[in-house]
Every structure is written in C-alpha cells, then in structure tokens.
C-alpha cells in the first residue's frame, strides 16, 4: 500500500510537496477550500479533500479539523509546509496521538528552538557564539559602560520591550553611550511604556546568513551549506542567494559556520529539515540568532547548488527511511543560485496589493525554475500570503546566475496584478547588490524602490491594444 500524504498548506509550497510525493510514488492529498475553489496546487495533487470553513482559522489553522480529516481518510503522513501549523507542537502532538507521522522535527526540538531565550542558552552551552550583551536590563550608565567594555564597542542600546526597529541606538564609545543612555530610556518609556534597556554588541552592516540542516531519524545530521538573505525590508526577505557571496571563497569560515549549525541541531536531536540563522558583521564574526524548525521558503536555491531534493529527503526522513546520503563530504556544492520572491504587492511601498491575474506568460532562459501558484483568473485576497511565486536561476558563477535572473524577470509577464517584479529588476541593476557585498541595511541605504520608473508606459499599452484589436477584427 502506497503511503498517503496530506498537504496541510496551499500555494506554491503545496505544489512543491505534491511533486515530491509524486517522485516517491506516494499519494498526495490536497485540501479543497471554498475560499480557493480553483487553487492551482490541486492540479498537482492526486486527491483532494474538502476542508470546510471560510477563514484560515477554520481551515489551515484548525488542528482538530485537520487531524480528523487525516484520520478519516487514512492519511499516513502530514506535511505542514511553512507558516500555518508547521511549528505548532500541539498539531504535531495531536497527529502523533492519532498515529500519523508529522513530516517535520520532533516536538521537543521545536519547543526548545521555538523559545528565543532557551535556544540562546542552549547555543551558549554548546559553545556557539551568540550576540554578546547584558543578560538583563541595565540600570545605570556605569553598568552599561562596564558591559560595553567587556563586549567591545560599538554597542547597541536596545529597549527591552522594543520592536519594529524602534528604541535602538548604536554607540561607538563610552561618551556616546553616556550621552544616549537617558535619551533612549525616555524614548522607550514613551513608545513602549517600559524604560528598561539592554546593551548588546552592535553588528555593523549585518548580514543575515543561514545554514540549511537536514537530519533523519537515524541520528544523521547534515548541512547543505549556507544561504544569504540580506535583501530585506520590514524583516521580509526579498532576494536570497546560495552560497553567500559575502563568505565567498572563505572555505574555512564556511566550514566553521556550517559545522556550528550542525552542532546546534545535534544538541536537540534534530531529525528533519530546518535552518539555523546567524548574523555576521564586517569582521566576519558570526553570532547565532535563532533556528527555524521547518522547511523554508528559500529552500530551492540550496537544492539548486547541491542538486538534492530537500522535500523528498524530508519525507523520507519522517518515515524513518534512508536518505541515501553516505556522509557529509558526499554533499558538494556547485555554482551559484539566486531566488527572487514574486509577491502581489505595490513595488514601491511593498504593501500587499490584492487583485486578479488577467494574463500570465513566461519566456525564461534555459534552466529557470519558477515555483508558483499563478494562473489566469487567480484572485489574490488579503487572507493569504501575498507571495505568489519564487523565481530561481542558477549559474556556475554568480554573474551568470544574475544574468539569467535578469532575463527571467524580463520574461515574466503577470498582468492585472501589482507585483514587485519592477523592484527586483532595479535591485538586480544596483551596483552594491552586484558586488555581492551588502548588508540588511541594503534597502534602506540604497532605496531601490525610488529608482522604479512609474511613468505611464504608453508604448507598451499601444502594443497590447494593437493585438487586442487585431484579435477582435478576426485577424
């Protein structure tokens, strides 16, 4: 009897998982909901199950409902994708109780790594560097200065209750620290109602670099090299690359970073796909941030450079099967891959822009990968994630990957829906981005959205109207 896998997700990741199931000759079962009766991912599933409910809470986030569906329909394993219930220990526990495999890591690992404080402590215990700083709030300037001496300037004064980039001030020496201390306290009090401050090492020009981990239930934990995700805005990733251009040819650093990630994963007996996130400064020193205990959006670029299908492996691992990977050294990387997230949003404000797709066509260079859920007639609603596709290109060298991405972006036509394609095109022309040496401040400093040409492109409309009229004429 072939295994039946329920895909508890939607959009492009659901199609992706279905394809993996096909490869393993498992039966992929998708969810049919009333809010998305024409969802594209259902095209790739072998079976559909009707999932009642109008809101996400009633469908994709409904633990009891999903478990019942799985039990009633003799499901062997559930793949949660990313987002929704992918890191929900209650869901995993409920499935386990029902005797159904949760295609993800064990609950203990999820619990430990889900708590920022616990994961940080665990990292320190395993000699994994974390962002140095005070363990709690600092009461006085002197205390702050003392800690700053220990961890070395520059430091960051950070509001304990802060968020969204507010209540932060970098200080480059003790005088600046003294001068800023009360200012930030007042800011914190008025903005968040809590004047408590932390002192942390200030990473200048931070890079967001993460390592892909895949483990099985037999105790094997492998890394699949790193990814650089520093092109972000409001903490949303826009473009990801593998391997990190900042690390470049520094194989020693790469080895150190990846083995550190493996060490952390091993410490919690990790047994599925996951990602360990680090922050790296100009000085190439890296610090552990957090671990995502799920498969991530940007996994395709790792697949491209290693040639290994991570979702297939994830499913195999979950069922206790052999991954077919003899050793870490057997995993090699080749070339460079880059991914652009295509989202239904205003390219300038980057705010979600719901709408309807009236035309969709692709004219890509050879080897382009586009994991998407777009089709003519697709209605993007505010209920769901605005990301509608991931455009991935790969080349032997970074320059080639960039060249192919530029051509792919020029060959991607989505009409009727605002997308961030124009933003991607501008970023790809940006010198700093092309150099490969950019930090998470890239969007703020370079302001690529200001370069987007918003002039009414009359020539393009002339051509479109010409073909429409020609067809109407019966030409």
């Amino acid at each position, binding site marked *: 009897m072939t295994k039946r896998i329920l895909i508890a997700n939607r959009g492009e990741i659901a199609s992706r998982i279905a394809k993996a199931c096909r490869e393993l000759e498992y039966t992929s079962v998708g969810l049919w909901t009333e809010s998305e009766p024409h969802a594209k991912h259902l095209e790739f599933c072998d079976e559909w199950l009707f999932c009642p409910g109008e809101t996400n809470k009633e469908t994709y986030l409904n633990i009891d409902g999903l478990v019942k569906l799985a039990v009633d329909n003799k499901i062997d394993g559930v793949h949660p994708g990313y987002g929704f219930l992918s890191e929900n220990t209650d869901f995993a526990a409920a499935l386990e109780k029902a005797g159904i495999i949760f295609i993800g890591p064990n609950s203990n690992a999820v619990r430990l790594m889900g708590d920022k404080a616990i994961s940080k402590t665990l990292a320190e215990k395993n000699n994994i560097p974390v962002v140095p700083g005070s363990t709690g709030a600092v009461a006085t300037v002197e205390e702050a200065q003392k800690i700053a001496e220990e961890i070395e300037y520059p430091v960051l004064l950070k509001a304990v209750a802060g968020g969204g980039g507010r209540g932060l001030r970098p200080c480059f020496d003790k005088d600046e620290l003294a001068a800023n201390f009360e200012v930030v306290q007042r800011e914190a009090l008025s903005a968040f109602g809590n004047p408590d401050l932390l002192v942390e090492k200030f990473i200048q020009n931070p890079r967001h670099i993460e390592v892909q981990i895949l483990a099985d239930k037999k105790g094997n934990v492998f890394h699949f090299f790193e990814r650089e995700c520093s092109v972000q805005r409001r903490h949303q990733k826009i473009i990801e690359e593998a391997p990190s251009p900042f690390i470049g040819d520094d194989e020693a650093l790469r080895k150190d970073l990846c083995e550190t990630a493996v060490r952390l994963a091993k410490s919690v007996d990790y047994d599925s796909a996951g990602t360990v996130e680090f922050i790296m400064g100009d000085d190439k020193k890296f610090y552990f941030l957090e671990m995502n205990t799920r498969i991530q959006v940007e996994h395709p670029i790792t697949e491209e450079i290693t040639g290994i299908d991570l979702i297939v492996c994830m499913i195999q691992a979950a069922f206790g099967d052999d991954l077919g990977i003899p050793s870490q050294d057997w995993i090699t990387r080749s070339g460079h891959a880059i991914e652009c997230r295509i989202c239904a949003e*205003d*390219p*300038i*404000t980057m705010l979600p*822009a719901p*709408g*309807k797709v*009236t*035309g*969709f*066509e692709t*004219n890509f260079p050879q080897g382009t990968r586009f994991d998407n859920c777009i089709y003519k007639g697709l209605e993007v609603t505010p209920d769901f994630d605005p990301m509608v596709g991931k455009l991935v290109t790969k080349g032997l060298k970074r320059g080639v990957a960039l060249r192919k991405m530029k051509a792919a972006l020029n060959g991607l*036509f989505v*009409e*009727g*829906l*605002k997308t961030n394609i*124009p933003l991607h095109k501008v970023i790809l022309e940006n010198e700093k981005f092309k150099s490969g040496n950019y930090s998470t401040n890239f969007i703020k400093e370079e302001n690529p959205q200001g370069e*987007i*040409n*918003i002039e*009414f*492109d*009359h*020539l*393009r*409309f*002339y*051509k*479109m*109207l*010409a*073909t*429409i*009229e*020609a*067809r*109407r*004429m019966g*030409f």
Partner: protein
Amino acid sequence: MRTYFIDNDKNEHVIDLTRTTVHSSDLVEFKFSYLDEQKLTKEQNVFVRKLAGQYFVSLDNKRWNKLARQDAPTVMLNVDQVYEVFRGYKPSGLTDGDEGGLKTQMPGKVIKIPVSVGAEVSKGQTVIVLEAMKMENEIKASYDGVVKEIYVKEGQALDNGVLMMELEKK
C-alpha cells in the same frame, strides 16, 4: 476610437486609435496616439502580424516581438497602478464635472444664503436655500472652492435659469 485607463483616484490616461490599415491577410497597421490636454501626442504606428497562432508586434515593420496573450482585459497594470480599462467610451455617470455657475432649475424664492463673497466652501456644502414648488431646495457646491460672486438676495423671487452665484474652483 479611444481607450480610457482610469485609476482608483479617477486619474485618466487616454489612448487614441486614429487609423487602422489592413495591408494583407497577415499584416495590419494601427496608428496610436496619446491624448495630452485634448491634444494628440506620442504618435506611433504599430504593426501586428499573426504567426503560428500568435500575435507579433513591431514598431517599424522590421523587428518583431511576441506579446503575452491577453483577451480584452478590463484591468491593466502599469508598475504600481492598476487601471480600469474602458474601450470605445468612458461610461456615463463615472465622473461628472460641473460648471462654477449655480443657476436656478425652476422658479423659486431665495430663503437663505448661508455664505458670503470670498467665503471658502467645501464640496457638498449648502450655499443657497431655495423654496420652490413647496419644497426646500438646498443648492450645494459641487467642488471645493471660493464664493466669487453672489447675484441674488434673500427673499428674492427668481425665474428659471437665473444665475444666482459663481464659485471659483480651488
């Protein structure tokens, strides 16, 4: 024939198809212009050729590009703006401009003039109250502006078509 592109804020772009010439069974030429302040500008000839069931366009009848297949859409996108597209005409009732002069629509008596010359008025604000046919008519300003001139006074009986007040648009 004109095609109207109208965005959420009622801004318009108008493209005019001035001339169509069918050259042969597989070549047709269109002359397009862009309407700028009632004048036709940005004239361009666009050639369309059909090949293997697909439409190819050219601006000079020499170099050809394929275009993404689209049926007659009602919505088109330009970078960060989504336009509603109206082919052939702009539907009546969408936007209606009004002149600045307020005339009586029927014979009546001026009951109240709650504004004075030079006063700033906002769209929808009552500027004159007329009594006519046993009804109290509140005449409202159709846009934000300034009262330029008042030609009538309270208690005055008016005929049909009398200019009562002039507003100047801000």
